[in-house]
């Protein structure tokens, strides 16, 4: 009997090895390029390979591991315009694309995920709209990009750790700005901060850059921010990149700025070195000849999720990979000091958020002392009882 058992075990092992040896994985990064105004800062100009570069690195990382596992990795990158997005996406579907990393805005993303159906796995590497993790969640859509709620909570925790609880909220006039402002109001309530003053900075259009623009800005911002009630910090909610970079040093009352400028919540930045990140930076820069952007890191992360799921399951079917990513067994190291995993109720990746002053990692949220029965990471963003998502039930 014992002999029989060991033969059987060898048989299983051999079968397992065979399965593991013939996995071919094709992943696509699907990016919609939107018409955009020039950024206030030249540093924010988008490189042509935004996101794709991160995916390329992940594909190489996955293939290096795959060489030991008998996996073959193929990466396709697709760019399109908002108008042509549906047609290009449908063409991808008809070619049999099953794993698609998306860099698209929320409304487009929702439409695409509804077109894709349940045979396809989409991973959102860009859109931060909290609604996608709430009432507008989709079962075929996972999010490695953090939600605006997570970002606002990351800032709120740090402010409260500093005991800077009185906030002066300045938000833009576009819908994305007011939505972001709403996230900060919610975060203030969640963590016990008080918004003592709110003002809207109107987007009046016009050119972003002029030769001596700073002369005017230096006079406008102090006037705009004078006579505010006593506050500890200024929170900038400027998703449209209209005014936030001008706030630090131009305020009427000297106060730290957080949110859209000053201390910003980010998933990654090119100076981040902790937890082995230096190696990521060096690999990325050698491959792409430029510094990493958040979008690159997020695309890398999305494809690494797939890499990890393929390695552990030995399969390439989108449904199997999705289920594994959402299972308790899934975990991934992502240069953030602890494993990243998915929230099973809405497909959002749990992750630490870096607080960045445009030079260094100033802090990392969640902050010390913010506990949670599941994971401190769930103190950031929509927790299970708060999320109206039912697609994952």
């Amino acid at each position: 009997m014992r002999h029989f058992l060991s033969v059987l075990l060898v048989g299983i092992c051999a079968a397992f090895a065979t399965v593991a040896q013939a996995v071919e994985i094709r992943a696509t990064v699907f990016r919609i390029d939107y018409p955009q105004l020039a950024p206030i800062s030249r540093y924010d100009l988008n490189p042509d390979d935004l996101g794709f570069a991160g995916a390329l690195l992940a594909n190489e990382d996955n293939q290096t591991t795959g060489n030991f596992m008998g996996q073959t990795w193929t990466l396709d990158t697709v760019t399109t315009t908002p108008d042509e997005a549906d047609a290009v996406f449908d063409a991808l579907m008809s070619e049999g694309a099953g794993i698609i990393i998306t860099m698209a805005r929320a409304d487009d993303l929702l439409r695409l995920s509804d077109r894709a159906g349940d045979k396809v796995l989409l991973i959102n590497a860009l859109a931060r709209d909290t609604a996608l993790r709430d009432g507008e969640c989709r079962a075929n859509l996972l999010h490695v990009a953090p939600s605006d709620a997570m970002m606002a909570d990351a800032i709120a925790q740090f402010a409260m750790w500093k005991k800077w609880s009185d906030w002066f909220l300045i938000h833009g006039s576009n819908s994305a700005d007011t939505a972001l402002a709403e996230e900060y109001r919610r975060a203030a309530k969640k963590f016990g901060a008080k918004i003592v003053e709110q003002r809207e900075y109107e987007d009046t259009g016009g050119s972003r850059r002029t030769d001596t623009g700073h002369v005017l800005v230096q006079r406008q911002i102090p006037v705009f921010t004078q006579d505010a009630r006593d506050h500890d910090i200024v929170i900038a909610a400027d998703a449209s990149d209209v005014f936030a970079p001008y706030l630090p040093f131009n305020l009427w009352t000297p106060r730290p700025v957080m949110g859209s400028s000053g201390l910003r919540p980010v998933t990654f930045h090119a100076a981040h070195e902790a937890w082995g990140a230096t190696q990521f930076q060096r690999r990325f820069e050698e491959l792409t000849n430029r510094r990493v952007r958040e979008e690159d890191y997020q695309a890398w992360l999305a494809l690494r999720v797939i890499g990890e799921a393929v390695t552990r399951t030995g399969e390439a079917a989108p449904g199997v990979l999705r289920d594994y990513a959402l299972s308790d067994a899934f975990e991934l190291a992502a240069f953030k000091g602890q494993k990243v995993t998915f929230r099973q109720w809405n497909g959002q990746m749990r992750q630490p958020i870096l607080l960045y002053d445009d030079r260094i990692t100033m802090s990392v949220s969640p902050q010390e002392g913010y506990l949670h029965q599941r994971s401190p990471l769930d103190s950031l963003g929509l927790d299970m009882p708060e999320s109206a998502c039912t697609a994952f039930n």
Partner: protein
Amino acid sequence: MKRLIATCLTFSCLATGAFANKVYVSNEKGNTVTVLDSDSWEVLTEFPAGNRPRGITISPDGKLLYVCASDDDMVRVFDAESYEELYTLPSGPDPELFVLHPSGNPLYVANEDDNLVTVIDTETHTVRAGIPVGVEPEGMAISPDAKFVINTSETTNMAHFIDTSDYKIKHNILVDQRPRYAQYSHDGKILYVSAEIGGTVSIIDIAEDGTPTLSDKISFEVPGVQPEWLQPVGVRTTSDGKWIFVALGPSNRVAVIDGQSHEVVKYIMTGQRVWQLAFTPDEKFLITTNGNSNDVTIIDVEAQKAIKSVQVGQQPWGVVVAPD
């Protein structure tokens, strides 16, 4: 009277000499190596060791001290007595950890940037081979019979078994996230691999011919400590196979594990961010490096108690004890 004292001093020196070994601690931020005496536990000296010294080991005869100077992209070799730098070895960029062949030659270095294990001849000071491994090679170990060198790759999450006769990878074992360190039991029958982010130590059984099989995983749990902070890094096993010690990083604890049942029997409090471990040759004491409190903790192995902490340089990382 004066004479009497002198005699006593000579005697006591001799007596100490029989038991005391030098303990070398690399200080990652201080760019130095601190030298301690394993009898008095006093700091003897601290000497410059290049930029960002991390991995540290010593030749079997105790004469040569090897230090991974990570930011200098080389291994620096020091005279273990005079602390003078003798020469450097070409490790490739950002060397972090290495393992020395029991004979003292060659040195196997994990080369994180190039996904390579570099084999360096310690006599000719040349590179013998570069072996492609997984993404971000880190932990290094060698089997007691020196037939296999183990490398762990942090992003690929594997232990690679490299045949030392032909430098080919013969086996790969998947472990948990971010494998940091590998350590064989002294009889060579088990390989332990710590996974920092996965929070586990994988137990890999080694067959007669060296074939590995993942048999179990050790997990850690401390009431009141968030599981995220129980991050296993350095691993050491006693030569009788009875005890395994695992440094648990930011949880500031060393786990004591029964070598037979693989149950965690105790957690010993140490300084902050406990990283690497080393025994004294008699295995009476275990020294831990504590990166965030700038000290080392001395653990009495038999009593399983921390008996002392000693301030060293800035951000101690690695530790090695001179052989008898």
